[in-house]
């Protein structure tokens, strides 16, 4: 009898088939055919997952389907797909979110050309297949295969708008940074393989957990680094906000709900290995909560909805990493599921609201949403509430509460972590509600004076053609999930085999208050004009704004005192300097702690210089994203290196050749052409021979 687990093989197949059919060029496909194929490929995995999930929830939840076996010398490598509670849950979530996003994209992308549409959906389907493969992987090779393929798709999808230099540069940045982190993961996985002599997760994880050598620590750290990179955790986070240059469905699926969170999933997957080292655990928890706090703070000061959501993803995944670090991977998975729902919802709703606006995805484009796109706006509110963790009625509250409780329960350090996480929760609520409140503001005047017709009319035109059900259904489904999904959190955690952590009443109560505190903050930032202007102005060097008095007293003043104290500054206060400092603070936060600049200075510029030095070529243009310092550095190095063109070794060889030519010039001068000189040669030769003869026959 066929095992029901064989269905596992079918899960990634539909999107893969869709990718192949869409990607193979010789087939001619019309627009409608492309959309149908894409939709089938995108939705089918969910329906394949359903019976599997049923089997799994029915209790028989450990199925391994071997794909094939490789003989590697002495060791055998068995590739397999694995069905266990974790992969079932995550797979189901990914399949569901993927189906929703692809459905949504049918409408959203409808004004693209057929060729671009094919490419887009081919890649989206490939991504879905890769992600499902990774989630269901039963061995490290398949796992890494999916993992890397996701990265590749991410590169292509961010750079979907190939004519846009920022998009291409953002794609490269994302790819390079994640690939850098993946190198750590690969190293970790290979070392694990060498330790356990197997790649099968069901063999390797128990084997890995029992290692007691230094290697264990190294492997755990390597895996952690890989996870941090993929999940855009500090210090690798810079790629994620840039990645928002991709289309909104891409951001919704890859760069929030699924791929980015894969790092947390990986940590949960390998938690028996990673988390049996207290040091690694502590590092993970520290990075998690630090990233969560940092991401939330940065998100507050964003003026672009998608970037805001990107920082939010960074922050929320920080919570998942924190949970894993606290030794509660099950809680992390719970948050993963919930986060996937509400974050994709937020992206989809925001995308729908801002679609076609000539303000792009700026916060201002949200204005008037309630009137223009009521469904999307309501969905957005639901998502934001879930993100902020409005108690009881949203799913977000349940999962976040589980994380906070886990922190509280960990002991004295846990309480510190809890405190930080609690503050983060407040910040979360602030940024979560900012777009919601922004949308209540009146629309800016110049919207209607868009140069190329009325964007709204354009959108309506497309919608009329495709039917807005493609937009509405995903929004409604995801909104429902974000609100009511909370009831699933506890079953999920217990299904994964862990206790649902419960905190005492006081911290729980405090945590429940956080969203409301955040709401107030958000209202202040939105409706107090000077504050709003300050946030706005922080992004624009040329328009410095004086901040509101109260904000000055409560936030800026302590900060400046702190800075003065830290830098031992005893000089009298200088208003301009103070102002400079406060602008710098906000700008620092809003640009993701300037890690981009740090990377630029520490990695990119030396790298480019090295390459230029080695290859000595006159460079063309470089990344337009923040390329000014690079260009300057290039100009400088060129002035020095320019004359020394080419590959150093090549130059060495060519110089030797030239030297040989010089010797040649000297050598040929011997041949003077005078017969007397020739005779002299003869005489000298004879004399030499005579001397030799004399010397050798002397006695």
């Amino acid at each position, binding site marked *: 009898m066929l095992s029901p687990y064989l269905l596992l093989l079918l899960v990634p197949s539909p999107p893969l088939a869709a990718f192949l059919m869409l990607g193979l060029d010789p087939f001619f496909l019309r627009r409608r055919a492309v959309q149908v194929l894409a939709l089938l490929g995108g939705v089918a995995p969910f329906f394949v997952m359903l019976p599997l999930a049923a089997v799994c929830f029915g209790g028989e939840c450990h199925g391994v389907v071997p794909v094939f076996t490789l003989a590697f010398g002495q060791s055998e490598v068995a590739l397999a797909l694995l069905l266990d509670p974790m992969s079932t849950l995550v797979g189901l979530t990914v399949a569901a979110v993927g189906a929703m996003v692809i459905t949504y994209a049918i409408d959203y992308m409808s004004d693209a050309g057929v060729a671009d549409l094919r490419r887009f959906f081919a890649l989206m389907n490939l991504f879905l297949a890769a992600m499902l493969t990774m989630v269901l992987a039963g061995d490290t090779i398949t796992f890494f295969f999916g993992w890397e393929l996701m990265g590749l798709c991410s590169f292509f999808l961010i750079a979907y708008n190939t004519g846009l230099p920022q998009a291409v540069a953002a794609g490269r940045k994302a790819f390079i940074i994640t690939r850098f982190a993946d190198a750590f993961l690969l190293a970790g996985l290979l070392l694990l393989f060498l330790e356990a002599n197997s790649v099968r997760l069901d063999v390797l994880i128990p084997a890995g957990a029992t290692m007691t050598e230094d290697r264990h620590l190294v492997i755990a750290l390597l895996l952690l680094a890989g996870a941090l990179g993929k999940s855009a955790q500090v210090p690798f986070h810079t790629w994620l906000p840039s990645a928002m240059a991709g289309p909104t469905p891409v951001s919704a699926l890859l760069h929030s709900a699924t791929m980015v969170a894969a790092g947390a999933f990986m940590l949960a997957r390998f938690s028996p290995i990673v988390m049996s080292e207290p040091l690694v655990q502590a590092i993970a928890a520290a990075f998690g909560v630090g990233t969560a706090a940092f991401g939330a703070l940065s998100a507050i000061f964003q003026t672009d909805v998608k970037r805001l959501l990107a920082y939010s993803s960074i922050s929320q995944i920080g919570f998942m990493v924190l949970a894993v670090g606290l030794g509660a991977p099950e809680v992390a998975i719970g948050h993963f599921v919930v986060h996937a729902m509400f974050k994709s919802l937020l992206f989809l709703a925001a995308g729908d609201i801002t679609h076609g606006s000539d303000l792009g995805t700026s916060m201002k484009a949200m204005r008037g949403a309630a009137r223009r796109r009521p469904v999307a706006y309501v969905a957005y509110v639901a998502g934001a509430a879930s993100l902020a963790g409005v108690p009881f009625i949203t799913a977000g509250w349940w999962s976040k509460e589980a994380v906070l409780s886990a922190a509280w329960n960990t002991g004295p350090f846990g309480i510190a972590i809890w405190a930080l996480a609690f503050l983060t929760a407040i910040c979360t609520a602030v940024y979560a509600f900012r777009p919601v409140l922004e949308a209540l503001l009146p629309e800016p005047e110049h919207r209607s004076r868009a140069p190329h017709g009325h964007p709204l009319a354009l959108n309506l035109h497309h919608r009329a053609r495709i039917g807005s059900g493609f937009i509405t259904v995903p929004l409604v489904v995801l909104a429902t999930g974000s609100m009511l999904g909370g009831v699933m959190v506890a079953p999920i955690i217990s299904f994964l085999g862990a206790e649902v952590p419960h905190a005492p009443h006081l911290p729980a109560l405090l945590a429940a208050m956080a969203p409301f505190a955040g709401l107030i903050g958000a209202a202040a930032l939105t409706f107090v004009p000077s504050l709003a202007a300050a946030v706005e102005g922080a992004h624009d060097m040329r328009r410095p704004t004086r901040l509101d008095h109260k904000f000055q007293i409560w936030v800026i003043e302590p900060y400046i005192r702190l800075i003065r104290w830290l830098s031992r500054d005893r000089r009298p206060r200088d208003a301009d300097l103070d102002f400079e400092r406060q602008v710098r603070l906000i700008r620092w936060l809003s640009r993701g702690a300037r890690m981009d600049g740090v990377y630029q200075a520490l990695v990119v510029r030396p790298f480019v210089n090295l390459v230029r030095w080695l290859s000595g070529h006159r460079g063309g243009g470089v990344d337009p994203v923040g390329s000014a310092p690079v260009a300057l550095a290039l100009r400088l190095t060129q002035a020095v290196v320019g004359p020394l063109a080419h590959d150093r070794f090549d130059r060495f060889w060519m110089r030797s050749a030239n030297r040989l030519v010089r010797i040649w010039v000297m050598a040929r001068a011997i*041949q*003077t*052409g*005078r*017969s*007397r000189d020739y*005779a*002299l040669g003869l*005489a000298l030769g004879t004399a030499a021979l005579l001397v030799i003869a004399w010397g050798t026959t002397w006695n």
Partner: protein
Amino acid sequence: MNAATLSILLLLSAGLFATGFFGLLARRAILFQLISLELMLAGPALGFIAGGAYHGGQTGQAMFVLILILAAAEVALGLALYLALRRVADVEDADTITRLRH
């Protein structure tokens, strides 16, 4: 004839040879170079005669005759060349015949 005489004669022949060689190196006129060549060939010829006289065979004399004949042939060729060179290139000085070089 004893060994000492042979040595003296051989030294003489070597001296003749060396003188000829020196002439070849020192003189620039083609004609004198040809004369030096003759001298160079005379050296070994004397050597053969001396060797033949010392050892008492006919080989030395035979070689002497052979050398004379070939030296004559050589000089004949040389003179012919000299005339041709004068006609074609109008040169007497061997040092100016340096068109082929390097």
